[in-house]
């Protein structure tokens, strides 16, 4: 299915104050791929994500989702196709109850009530949060908020999932659960993250960003053993790929 692919060609972007954030980014992500975007703070990861959804429009270059370029005209369709999970779930949960929040998107699609209910229940049970349905979002824990934020996006039934730091601020178990959950999705996934161990578990491909450009693009396992590259990009090997601190054994 072609609308699951993302093609970014020579994308450049400068903020209105003149700060250049992206300079000539090019990559292509095909259907069903799971791609991590890693890089130091300020490398341009979030700015890049904002382009995939048309929140920012490129100063030069283009973004295509499936067959359609991202333009003002295609935006409504693009936003239905690309589901975006924000870094701070509080930004994403704005309705009075969890159920209403998850139903917000489907309701805007103009679906009949039964369909909305079905989608809400389905999305919430997929993230294991059905019991939170009637709770107000501000009373949830960090992990619960994150799960519900993902459910709000799933309820839109997007083909592509874009996530900004999904594992930040989670305790180890909630993080593990989230990774397992994400692994069950067969969407095309793009995950911007500092959590290289998650990238290792979840994404077969990684794009390393450095100063607004693509520094490397390839299989995750290969890139994460390239110490010179990681050093240049302000990263470190994931813990899972370092020698054991006690016995020194690798793997």
């Amino acid at each position: 299915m072609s609308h699951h692919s993302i093609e970014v060609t020579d994308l450049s972007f400068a903020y209105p104050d003149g700060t250049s954030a992206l300079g000539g980014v090019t990559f292509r992500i095909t259907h069903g791929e799971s791609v991590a975007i890693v890089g130091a703070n300020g490398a341009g990861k979030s700015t890049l994500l904002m382009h995939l959804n048309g929140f920012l429009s490129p100063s030069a270059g283009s973004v295509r989702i499936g067959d359609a370029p991202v333009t003002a005209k295609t935006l409504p369709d693009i936003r239905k196709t690309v589901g975006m999970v924000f870094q701070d779930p509080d930004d994403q949960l704005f309705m009075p109850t969890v159920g209403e929040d998850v139903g917000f998107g489907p309701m805007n699609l103009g679906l009949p009530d039964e369909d909305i209910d079905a989608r809400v229940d389905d999305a919430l049970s997929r993230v294991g949060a059905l019991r939170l349905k009637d709770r107000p979002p501000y009373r949830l824990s960090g992990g619960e908020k994150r799960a519900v934020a993902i459910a709000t996006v799933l309820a839109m039934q997007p083909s592509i999932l874009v996530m900004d730091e999904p594992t930040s601020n989670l305790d180890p178990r909630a993080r593990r659960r989230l990774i397992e959950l994400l692994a069950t999705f067969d969407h095309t996934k793009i995950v911007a993250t500092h959590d290289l161990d998650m990238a290792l578990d979840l994404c077969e491909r990684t794009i390393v960003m450095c100063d607004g450009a693509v520094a490397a693009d390839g299989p995750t396992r290969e890139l994460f053993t390239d110490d010179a590259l990681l050093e240049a990009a302000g990263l470190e090997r994931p813990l899972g790929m370092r020698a054991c601190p006690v016995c020194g054994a690798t793997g």
Partner: protein
Amino acid sequence: MPSIESGLYELGQLDSLARRDTPIHRLDPRAKVLTTLVFLVCVVSFGKYDVLPMLPYLLFPVVLASEGDLPWRFFARKLLVVAPFAVVIGMFNPLLDRAVILHLGGVGVSGGWVSFVSILLRFGLTTVAALVLIATTGFVGVCMAIERLGAPDVFATQLLFLYRYIFVLGDEAMRMVRARALRSFGRRGTGVRVYGHMLGSLLLRTYDRAQRVYLAMLCRGFDGHVRIRGQLRLSARDVAFTLGWSAAFVLFRLFDVPLMAGLLITKVLS
């Protein structure tokens, strides 16, 4: 600042009260909003020196609170918190208006004192009525009601968002105040300037957040209307509630019920 914390906590408490299930809670939100509106208009329209004719209005919050199983102490505390505003507003009346208009057991009471009491009573009645409305309906219910009653969409949406993000904003403000306190070493004299900066950066953060929230909404097909779900059904009970109470309020307004009761009693006794 614990006051932010406890304020948020009490707001949350109001919310959990609204989730109880009593006959009053089950009434249609529109019925309660309309009735409360009539109540407020009647109470506010009393004259400057009216005190006794307003007393029958106490019936409404008392009946609703007891039927709705609401804790009295909660409301008393809330009233005390906001009472200083009313006191300040009426404070100068006894000083400015010294004409004696009333004799209570030989003691002359000036018009200023009477109007002062009238202000306090009015304030108490309106505040308690509003609190009871929210505690039996819930904030969302009130928003839904005013939207269905024909108030502009924007208005209901604003209220809804205000309620959702006041917790987030409060948390943020609390963290800032804490961070300031940790580095001001008990000295309170950190000055208005610091507070100015804090308020400014809080405003900027809020602005940023608003933008992110808006993006999140666009992501999910927001088209300018927030649709609040839920079916409202007006039953005969709701109509009876609204008409009954409204009629009572208008009666209380037109006739001085305590005076009539007093006259009746004196007539019977004499």
